[in-house]
C-alpha cells in the first residue's frame, strides 16, 4: 500500500497530465461527424508521431554503434509517421475543401 502511495506521489505531475489529457481527448472529438472519421484518425495518427522526440533524445545521447544504428532507424521511422501522416491527412481534407469552394 505504502509503495503504491509513494508511486502516486512521485509521479503525481505525470498522472495529473495523463488524467486531464484523457478527458480532453474524449471531449475534443466526441461530436465528430462520421464523414470526418478517416481524416481524424489519420490526423491523430500523425500526432502520435511525437514519439520521434524520444528517438531524437536517444539518438542524441547514443554512445555505441548499436544504439546509433537503432536510434537512426527510430528517427527515420518516427519521421515517416509524422510527415506521412500529416501529408496524407492534408490530401484527404483537400478533397473536401476544394469541393466546398466550387459551390
Amino acid at each position: 500500500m505504502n509503495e503504491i502511495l509513494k508511486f502516486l506521489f512521485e509521479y503525481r505531475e505525470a498522472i495529473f497530465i495523463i488524467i486531464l489529457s484523457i478527458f480532453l481527448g474524449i471531449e475534443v472529438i466526441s461530436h465528430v461527424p462520421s464523414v470526418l472519421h478517416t481524416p481524424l484518425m489519420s490526423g491523430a495518427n500523425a500526432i502520435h508521431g511525437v514519439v520521434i522526440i524520444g528517438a531524437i533524445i536517444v539518438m542524441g545521447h547514443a554512445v555505441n554503434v548499436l544504439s546509433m544504428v537503432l536510434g537512426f532507424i527510430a528517427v527515420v521511422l518516427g519521421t515517416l509517421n509524422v510527415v506521412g501522416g500529416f501529408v496524407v491527412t492534408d490530401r484527404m481534407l483537400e478533397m473536401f475543401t476544394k469541393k466546398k469552394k466550387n459551390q
Partner: protein
Amino acid sequence: METIQTLTKTFEFSEYLSILEVSYILASMLFILGLKKLSHPDTARSGNLWAAVGMGLAIVFTILFHKTKTDDGSYQGIHNIGWIVGALVIGTVVGWMAAKKVKMTAMPQMVSLFNGMGGACAALISMMEFPKMQNELAGSQAVNMLSGEALAILLGLMIGGVSFAGSMVAFGKLDERLGDVKSPLLRYINLSFLVILFAFVIFIMLKAPVAGENWMIYTLAALALIYGVTFVLPIGGADMPVVISLLNSFTGVAAAMGGFLYNNQAMLTGGILVGSSGTILTILMCKAMNRSLLNVIIGAFGGSSAAGPESGDKTVKEISLSDAAVLLSYSQKVLVVPGYGLAVAQAQHLCHELENLLGSKGVELKYGIHPVAGRMPGHMNVLLAEADVAYEKLQEMEDANNEMNNTDVVIVIGANDVVNPAAEEDPSSPIYGMPVIKAWEAKNTIIMKRSMAKGYAAIENNLFFMPKSRMLFGDAKATLQKLVSEIKSL
C-alpha cells in the same frame, strides 16, 4: 546552473530548458487545437496544419535545447546532430513521396503503415533505454526493477511492438496480400498470449537486474510482435478500419510511455490525447456498425450460428442493360448507394460520368452514403470527392431515407449489408438494429453485384428478392461503362 528548492523537489533552472518547456507547452496547445479543428469539416484542414506546426516546433526545439544530466553532474546537449538531421531528411522525403503518390483508394492501408512506423519507433526507444537502466540499477545493487521508469519502458516496448506488428498485418489485409484466418482456437491462443505478456513484464520487473543481460528484453519484443500478428489475423478485412483506429490509440499510449520516461510533456500530452481520442473514435466507428468493440475483436460476426431466413426457393429478377438505361433516363430522382464493391472496382469516376449524363437529361442523381460505406468511415466521401462529385450531391443516410419515397430508382453498387432490410425487420439477424439505407422504399431498385455472394456479415439479403428489386450482374466498373454507353445511344 542555478538550483531552486521547492517544497518537494530540487530542480535546476536554465534558460535552455525553460525555452524547451515553453516550446512543449506551445506544441501541446497546437495538438489540442489541431485535433479540435480536425473534428469540424470547415476547419479540418487548418487543424491538421496547426498540429503539424506544433510537431515541427517540438522537434526543432528538442534538437536545439534538449539537455541530459550525465553521471558527473554536467549537462550535455544533443550529439550526432548530423545523423539526426540525415534521418529526418530521409524520413521526410520518403514519407512525403509515399503520401503524395498513394492512390485515394489505398489510403487506409497507408495510414496503417504510418501507424506501424510510429509503433516501431516507440518499441526501438524502449529497446535502447532498457539496457541503460538495467546497467544503472545493477551498478547500484538494486534487488528489483520496480519503478515507474521500468514500467514505462516495458509497456512502451510491449504496446509499440503489438501496434507495429498489428498494423503490418492490417496493411497486408487491406492491400489484399493477406487473407482472413478464422479459427476459434486463435481466440484462446490470443487470450493466453496477453496473459503471458503481462506476466512477463511483471517477471522482468521483479527480477534483480544484471548488467548486460539482454535476453529478457528481446523475448518481450518477440512476444509482443507475435501477439500483434495473432491479434489482428483473425479479424475480418472489412473490420480493419476499427482495428487501425484501435492500434492508432495503442501507438498513442506507447508514445506517452516515452513521455513518462523522459518526463517530456509534449510526448505525454500528444500520446495520451491520441490514446483517448483514438479509443473514442474506435467506439464511435463500432457504434456506426451497431457492434461492440469486443464483438469486432473476437470476430463473432459471420461465424455466428444465425442462419437467417431460408432462401432455397426464392428467385431474383434480372434487368437487362437496355431496360435499366430506359428506366434511368425517364426517372426524375435517382439515388446511388455506393459500397465496398465500388471502391474495389474503382468505379467512382464512372459514377460521376453517369451522374453528368443523367443530369443532361434532366434526371437528378444523388449519392446516399452510409456512415460505414467504403473501407473506412468517410472513405466513400473522399473517393467520390476525388472523382469530382460535388459535395452537395452526397446525402447522409438520414436525408436519403427521408426522400426515399419520392425516389424513382435506387442503384445499389457493390453494397450489401448497408441496404439489408433484415436490420429493421428481423430481430434474430446479427445486424438487427444497424441503421441502413432503406433502398426497398424507393419505386425501383437496381442492384449491381458481381454474384449472389453474401456481404461481409454473411447473411442473406432479402432486398434482392423483393418485388421492386432487379439485379444487374457483373463487375461494377464494366457494368457502369456499358450502362453509360447504353444511355448515350438512346
